[in-house]
């Protein structure tokens, strides 16, 4: 594949940082498009959800009244692309009265400090 030639055997740690609510702006949806493409490159992909970004993976989206498609099932499909490193910030969940049980995918819950430490280990951080 052409995509694999780009990498030339280099594997970097990519992190996609999701900070925004799923609807209202297009960022969450277009981040997901980036994530899916990056799956083709055999990179070490991480997803982080913090601030209102935790709502992206909350159960029970129904945006039909907004005329938007519910794209939250895509998060459950990430596993099929070998994207399994999903992290959620503990404080962001708590501030919104949410727990892991409210989420559509299995995640690792990290404290704000641990999330910062994980980010510091990354080679490429893309935030939206």
């Amino acid at each position, binding site marked *: 594949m052409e995509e694999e030639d780009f990498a030339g055997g280099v594997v970097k740690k990519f992190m996609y940082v999701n900070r925004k609510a799923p609807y209202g702006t297009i960022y969450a949806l277009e981040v997901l498009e980036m994530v899916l493409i990056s799956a083709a490159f055999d*990179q070490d992909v991480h997803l982080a959800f913090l601030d209102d970004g935790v709502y992206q993976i909350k159960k029970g989206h129904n945006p039909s009244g907004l005329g938007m498609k519910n794209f939250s099932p895509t998060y459950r499909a990430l596993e099929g692309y070998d994207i399994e490193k999903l992290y959620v910030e503990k404080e962001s969940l708590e501030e919104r009265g949410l727990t892991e049980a409210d989420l559509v995918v299995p995640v690792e819950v990290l404290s704000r400090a641990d999330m910062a430490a994980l980010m510091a280990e990354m080679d490429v951080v893309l935030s*939206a």
Partner: protein
Amino acid sequence: MKFGILVNEGPYNHQASDSAYQFAKAALEKGHEIFRVFFYYDGVLNATRFSEPPTDDRNVIKNWQKLAEQYSVDLVVCVAAGLRRGIVEDSLAPGFRISGLGQLIEAGIQADRLVAFGD
């Protein structure tokens, strides 16, 4: 150093594109390399050939074009984000090209630093 640059916001509404341009220009003038500039989200609107700002304002699109001419910078617009927003071959300003998100991932892999501009 070899930089990749990601522009996430459109021209004029947001300073991201201006800041990215200033950063790229300064880096090139200091002898650094810009592997690629990738335009995503509303950032694809930086590639429109229909922009005509008032003459006493800076021309964001032309700034990028001039930089590309002078330093052979690779200006790449995301095809999927572009299609959503009406940025296609016919609306593309000279100096830009349209390609896939793989070009952004490649920039992340090849560059020493990928610097993103936006919120």
